[in-house]
């Protein structure tokens, strides 16, 4: 008999403006891509049910504004995070160089209890653009940086084509699960209903 205990895993997506944070989230949760996403103002999140070892989790994925100027909001949005996803655009060196800033800013603002071991996952997005010809950050370079920061898991993704998105978020969920010690949470009925129906239709994909 599988346990029906619910747990909430909170994931924050950070990265420069326009690297594809909203698109990655929507591709993972809704399996959709749009060219018409607006710049995120403030923050928003989507939830998705995931299953591990017969246990059901609610993955709460937070999408935030990418402009540094909005970082003062982080305190409110980052708290209680179980995993942080750092996204850059493989076609933009600046967005890659900023990963370190985003990582440090997150650790300061979220102030997790064990910052040394707090799980991050890095995504190099937009690998589809121009057939890879406009790429400026090599996979090797990215992996080297991830290794230097305590072996951060790394994925190369295309939110547009869905490449590696599912795999990346599986990893994100697993890492979130390792860090979050399965806090029991209360979910309002409305979300319960939506969640269980989602589970019925999409349960097998886990």
């Amino acid at each position: 008999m599988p346990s029906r205990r619910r747990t909430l895993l909170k994931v924050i997506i950070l990265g420069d403006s326009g690297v594809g944070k909203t698109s990655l989230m929507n591709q993972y949760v809704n399996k959709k891509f749009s060219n018409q996403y607006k710049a995120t103002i403030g923050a928003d999140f989507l939830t998705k049910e995931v299953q591990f070892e017969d246990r059901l989790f609610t993955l709460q994925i937070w999408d935030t504004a990418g402009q540094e100027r909005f970082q003062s909001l982080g305190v409110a949005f980052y708290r209680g995070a179980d995993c942080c996803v750092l996204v850059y655009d493989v076609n933009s060196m600046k967005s890659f160089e900023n990963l370190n800033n985003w990582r440090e800013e997150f650790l300061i603002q979220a102030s997790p209890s064990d910052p040394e071991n707090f799980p991050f996952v890095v995504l190099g997005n937009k690998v589809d653009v121009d057939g890879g010809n406009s790429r400026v950050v090599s996979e090797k370079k990215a992996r080297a940086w991830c290794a230097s920061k305590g072996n951060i898991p790394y994925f190369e993704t295309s939110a547009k084509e869905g490449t590696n998105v599912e795999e990346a978020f599986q990893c994100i969920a697993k890492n979130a699960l390792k860090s979050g010690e399965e806090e029991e949470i209360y979910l309002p009925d409305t979300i319960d209903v939506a969640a269980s129906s989602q589970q019925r239709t999409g349960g097998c994909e886990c």
Partner: protein
Amino acid sequence: MHEFDLHYLSDDADYADSMQQGSASMTRSGNSNRNSSSEQVGAEIVYLKDNVAIHPTQHAWERIRGRLKLIKQGGSLLMTWIPYEGQSSSARLSEKDKSLYTIRAVPFSDIRSIRRHTPTLGWQYAIVVLSSGLAFPPLYFYNGGLKEFLATIKQHIFLVRSAEDANIFLVNDLQDPLQRTLSSLELPRAISVANSPTSSIAPSESSFSRTDSETIDKNSAFIQQNGRQRQNHNDPRHLSIQVLEKFSLVTRFARETKSQFLREAHGDGFISNAMRKHDKKPNNSFVVEYNDVHKPLEDVHVPADLSEYDYDKLSLVWGKPRQPPLGSKEWSTFLDSEGKVKDSQALRKRIFYGGVEKGLRKEVWRFLLGYHSYDSTYAEREYLAPIRKSEYETIKNQWKSITKEQAKRFTKFRERKALIEKDVVRTDRSIPFYDGDDNSNVKCLRDILLTYSFYNFDLGYCQGMSDLLSPILYVMEDESQSFWCFVALMERLGPNFNRDQNGVHSQLFALSKLVELLDNPLHNYFQQKDCLNYFFCFRWVLIQFKREFDFEKTMRLWEVLWTHYLSEHLHLYVCVAILRRHRSKIIGEEMDFDTLLKFINELSGHINLDATLRDAEALCICAGENGEACIPPGTPPSLPFEITSMYNQQDDDDIL
């Protein structure tokens, strides 16, 4: 949640005698009484008191005396106070004043509470507070009878004494007032009757409320909604007397303004329209037209002397109905022969209540935004146009002339340009004006924003600016004029985009103070849930609801906000209005910060603009000076004290 004991009038020795002789209406059980009362035909006067006066000024000798009545009509109880003919105590009080203060058949379903004053010296008086939070002027019982007045009310409807102030009697405290209309200023804390030890009162209370609702608003869907929510939100409230007395003044102010407005408004479209509607009703109908929310009270028949259309009272309960937008013909009447705006206050008021027709926006927005001053002439405006255009071109050339070689060595310029280019291609692309590849208007957005980031180099570019510029360019269809209008708008909203976000934070702070004033239970709820930072309203405030309404409605809202007619900070009252519309859901579903943020984000596209504006207007009037006191000086969109200190350049700035 606060919990406190409910006190009932039956516990009160003052009322013991009147209760004994009264019909046992409060001890009735559920439906039996309801049936007997609602089946009665016609109106029955259940209370009549002569020599009940109001004092329209602070001078005790200036009073208007009249007759106070309680009338039972179907399942409803109505209150009237009609001044005597030709008996003014002072020559200064005209018949008009009298009619201004006349209380014509107010159903108790519209009344929130009654406060009793029984000073040891002087006359007893009562203040009747409407559901909207507004109050009638104090009614002085020169011949006594206040006690009987309350006792009679209690015989017919549910009346409960406030726990915190024994002189406050809460009336009809059953339905979620928000759903009813605007309305209510809920000063006071709420408790759930269901949780209180005295929940046995529930049957009689709901029986009244049902009767009342069905009679008054039989067809109205929102009442059904109330019915559903009523269980959770029986919120006996007690009222702060200082605030109440303030409202009493506000009421007078509102009435005076309104009567002046009525005098001025001959031939005014929406007034005459409302009057026409009234004319169609039978003479003995008391009609309340609350636009699209309330249905006429056709079932409430009252004696003929109460039949006069009480337009005056309506704005006390809800903001005024929206008018049709300002058109070119009417616009020309606001201009004198030289092209100056004769009365900018009147113009702003007109736009506040109706907005501007599409085709006229191009012209009128320039005034609203401050590109043209109201007292400029046709000739001056014509003279200035090419000058501003050339000024714009000069600034634009500052970045246009940057060569590739120079740009290579100018990281901040490249980054700023890249950021703008990323954002303009995701700004309002669903609007045909910005649709399609290589759209020249999208390029124009980029040019203006980049030029602005040179004009105001310290502030630079920040996400959200493209949202603010896009409707302006759409309306102006002219690059340099759009730029200068945007500059004028950013003089007010620039602090929203400061690096330390202080502009937004000061507005969110003011918002929290306004909610504390206007909806204390909701404030307490947010406090309990650790949500007082109001970050869930961040998007609303940063870009003035741009993402919450469709393009057309956003423009309508903005032109109303830009009038600064009732307040420079009407947008904060709009925030309060929207929150209040959903308060029962927010509290009922025990939303925490996360769910609240999600809920607020998902309201986008589902907010009724006109209703929200009317709520906001009424809230703004209700809050009055207390509301403005919640908003620290200099809070955007107020103009900052010192323009020069507005943008604090910081060294750690890595995006220009």
